[in-house]
């Protein structure tokens, strides 16, 4: 086939490939230069590594945490809390959205409460959760839920309401019941909306977990950040932030992967 491709097309393909490589190269360069500059400046004492930390010290911190055997313990606790909060937030949020769709009356009744809850900075509820539930992982998960739940409810409900009424009428013309409308139209048609809610929730559940850990925890990345800040160990703070960034990105990519997997057998 390749001899059928015209010269112009070949040239075009080459330009596209070249641009792609260039983009990757520059991305990598930015990272390397930034890290190198940070390291060099800290070594030359242009900046105070006690306050700014530096890449080599971060690496050492990771190794030290690993040797102490607590590295994966902290990462594990935080990730577990984030995943539980994320899954619960999505499931509960979708279920509440279904209830609100089911009963228009209920939906009208609770509307002002949803508005208030949506506007309220959920972090303010933190101390209440701690008192009620106790300082521990449970309070952190509830914090995560509080942050992601209302957004999920609103997002999914809007998805439901945006579905063409005639699609629902079609089910009704076949004598379909409300549960059938839900399973045959609403849920499959809202699939892209639910995936979008998942993507938003990944970010929100990390916010919830870190806030929760700031407030109560005795372990986890959020705990390391707060602890490191209090005892002025900026190495520990920076290390935790970087691990956090990697973990959150991995989880987001997980959702993207899930989306691809589920959409795979459907045409676009």
């Amino acid at each position, binding site marked *: 086939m390749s001899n059928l491709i015209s010269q112009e097309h070949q040239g075009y393909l080459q330009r596209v490939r070249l641009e792609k490589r260039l983009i990757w190269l520059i991305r990598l360069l930015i990272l390397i230069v930034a890290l190198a500059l940070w390291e060099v400046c800290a070594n030359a004492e242009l900046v105070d590594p006690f306050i700014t930390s530096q890449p080599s010290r971060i690496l050492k911190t990771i190794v030290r945490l690993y040797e102490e055997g607590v590295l994966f313990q902290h990462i594990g606790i935080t990730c577990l809390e984030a995943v539980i909060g994320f899954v619960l937030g999505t499931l509960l949020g979708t279920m509440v959205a279904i209830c609100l769709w089911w009963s228009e009356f209920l939906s009208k009744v609770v509307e002002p409460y949803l508005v208030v809850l949506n506007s309220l900075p959920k972090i303010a509820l933190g101390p209440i959760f701690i008192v009620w539930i106790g300082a521990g992982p449970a309070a952190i998960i509830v914090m995560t839920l509080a942050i992601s739940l209302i957004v999920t409810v609103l997002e999914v409900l809007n998805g439901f309401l945006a579905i*063409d009424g*005639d*699609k629902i*009428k*079609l*089910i*009704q*013309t*076949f*004598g*379909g019941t409300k549960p*059938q409308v839900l399973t*045959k*139209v609403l849920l*499959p*048609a809202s*699939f892209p909306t639910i995936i979008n809610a998942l993507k938003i929730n990944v970010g929100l559940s990390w916010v919830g977990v870190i806030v929760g850990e700031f407030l109560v925890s005795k372990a986890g990345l959020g705990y390391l950040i707060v602890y490191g800040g209090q005892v002025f160990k900026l190495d520990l703070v920076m290390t935790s932030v970087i691990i956090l960034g990697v973990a959150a990105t991995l989880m987001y990519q997980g959702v993207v992967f899930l989306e691809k997997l589920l959409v795979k057998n*459907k*045409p676009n």
Partner: protein
Amino acid sequence: MNHVVEVHNVGMKYQSLNGEITAIENIDFSVREGEFVSIVGPSGCGKSTLLSIISGLLPSTSGTVLLCGEKVSGTSPKIGYMLQKDHLFDWRTIYQNVILGLEIRKTLTPEAKEQALKLLRTYGLYEFKDKYPNQLSGGMRQRVALIRTLVTDPQILLLDEPFSALDYQTRLMVNDDIYAIIKQENKTALLVTHDISESISMADRVILLSKRPGTIKSIYDISLDSENRTPLLSREAPEFRHIFQEIWKGLDVHV
């Protein structure tokens, strides 16, 4: 004569905070078995309301509707309803779309599945059965929508402007296509449209509704002088433009 649809003195009033709207009033007509009846009228005259009432989706505020002598209360398996758009579900294959009605009615027997495949085969869609709707043309999609309705074996087809979403050329072609299928399957059909030509070209009788509140203004018997009548050939019949003029005057359109 065997009447499959009898509409007796049907009226519909919608309630809203701004008051009461009478959509239709004193509608009285019947449809014989195997007959093709069109309902035309200006927009907003309650054509679709009337179909919804006949299908049992919407209870009328006065009058009664009988299907094969039985009073309508709720949807009936005797009715097949076709909406403005095909509303094929993107996430289902053509075959899965076709059996949607069977799934909902819980009548997805091996025989029914066989019937679905047979209809797909008869109407040239068998090779597309595992494709998704967005891989089909507009005309084919409309044909799939009709098969989805036919496979539940309704006696009466209610067509609610099923061609209005198509472009003009496709529309003419689909008119012929759907008409041929309806005749071949020997179904009674009631078509709602605002397109006068379409209503004449397909129907044995045209019912003209007035402006809101919709009442029956007149009923035209369409007997066209063309053999092997198809909607496209009907448009060439000499009487066509006379009937068109008559209905056009009756519609009394003002800009």
